[in-house]
């Protein structure tokens, strides 16, 4: 995968340090175009820091991040988004004082055409009829599962080429977790490259095409889901 091109995400020798425990130490990985690539690791392994580095929220000290031929390293976040990168952040992070529809419209912030935004809204409402029923409800008053729908819908409103998903199953009821994984599969089948950060090993590997394991800021294992499922690094990363 050295000469990954097209719309792949390439993280090349990235080191990020800041005043938190999470740091990255020379991380290299590729999220191949059109695939679901997962990043497994326990709390504090640096998963979220990597997402933040890709998004330009915590720029790396060393290394490069490229996507679809654009060097994202050091770009401000809105330029990263303009390159086609969207993120469903950890903890969903809906805007509590916005209505469902305002939240969704925030996702399409960089789209200026009203008709395109309307089309995307309709599409999200088709996927989540529950949200369509509650367009005018304040997001802060909704349940965790509904907020997850808003957060995912908001990501889809960006019509991204690459979707970064940070711990989607955190804090959700098991049945919703399953729904979530099905949905990620479906999003990917529509041609969106997915980079999925998770702690939920088995279900994550079940839908991924390729995976990496992060421990203490380093990539300690990588491979196909079948291979990764059997490695001791995966078990050590969580239970070691």
């Amino acid at each position, binding site marked *: 995968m050295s000469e990954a091109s097209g719309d792949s995400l390439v993280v090349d020798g990235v080191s990020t340090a800041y005043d938190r425990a999470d740091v990255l130490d020379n991380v290299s990985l590729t999220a191949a175009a059109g695939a679901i690539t997962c990043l497994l690791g326990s709390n504090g392994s640096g998963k979220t820091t990597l997402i933040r580095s890709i998004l330009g929220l915590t720029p790396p000290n060393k290394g490069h991040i490229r996507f679809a031929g654009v060097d994202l390293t050091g770009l*401000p976040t*809105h330029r990263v*988004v303009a390159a086609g990168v*969207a993120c469903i*952040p950890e903890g969903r992070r809906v805007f*509590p004082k916005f209505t469902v529809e305002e939240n969704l419209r*925030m996702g399409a912030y960089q789209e200026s055409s009203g008709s395109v935004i309307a089309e995307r809204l309709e599409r999200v409402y088709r996927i989540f009829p529950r949200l369509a029923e509650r367009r005018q409800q304040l997001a802060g008053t909704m349940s965790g599962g509904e907020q997850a729908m808003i957060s995912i819908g*908001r990501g889809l409103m960006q019509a991204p080429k690459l979707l970064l998903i940070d711990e989607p199953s955190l804090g959700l009821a098991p049945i919703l977790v399953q729904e979530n994984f099905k949905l990620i599969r479906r999003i990917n089948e529509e041609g969106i490259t997915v980079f999925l950060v998770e702690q939920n090993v088995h279900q994550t590997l079940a839908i991924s095409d390729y995976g990496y394991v992060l421990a203490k800021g380093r990539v300690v294992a990588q491979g196909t889901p079948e291979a990764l499922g059997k490695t001791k690094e995966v078990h050590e990363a969580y239970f070691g």
Partner: protein
Amino acid sequence: MDLGLLAQYVMNGLMLGMMYALVAVGFTLFFGVLDIIKFSHGDVLTVGAFTALATFIALSALGIESSVVQLLVMLLAAIGAMAFLGAVIARAFVLPLRSAPPLNTLLITLMIGTVLREMVRLFYPDGANPKPFPRLLPADSVNLGGFNLRLDNVILLVAGALVIVCLQLVLNKTKLGLAIRAVAQDEETTKIMGVNFNRIVLVTFAIGSGLAAFAGVMNGLYYNEINFGIGLYLGVVGFSAAIIGGLGNIYGAILGGFLFAALQTIGAVSLPFASAYKDVFAFAVVIAIMAWRPTGLIPEKTSERV
């Protein structure tokens, strides 16, 4: 007290309330996007009022005598220049200090305010003394039985109300407003949505400072006099109004502005020695309100910071 005098007090209170509200809205907007208090806000108002006055003198020297044209150009110059100044202050001093403790931002804006104020005092010709501000609005009045309703006051009030309504529309109906309100809730997520955060900050500071310039011109037209200290006073009052309303909440700031003016008016009407103690009374009540509702009458931020 007779009704005519009471009506006079109410009119004066409304006028003050409008000015306070316009200043308070600025404080609350800045706090919304950056969680900071910008203490130079009042002095930006002063510079705005003096910019309008200088524009008037320049227009008169050019032989432009139509008061409508004069007033429009003065407003445009003052609002435009202060919007620019506000954005420059944000770009050069506030944004670079984001990683520093908030106290540093407070201190630096306090110093910027002093520099602006002293610049007006020292460099504006005879700036240490009060300057007459031209009467540019029609001076007609309608007698309503013991109370003279002045047309210029009505125009000022309507104009102020229109400005607040426009701001309201911008915040609630435009994409820019959506972004400003989003930043106030969650800065990082707003960035992830593709919003250019720095630009939103600069535009917000420009809007807030433009409002201060408008309030400064309003102040000049109402009292027909300005001095280098008006912004210092209006800044303290506007800040208090924003705090009692609930910092970060636009409606709270407007409510706070009118409430402060109401307190002053009540103080002036009901206390002996009339207006001498009106500020003491108003600030004392503000302190009491703050002790009773530490996060303001319409608390904004507390509910999010669980």
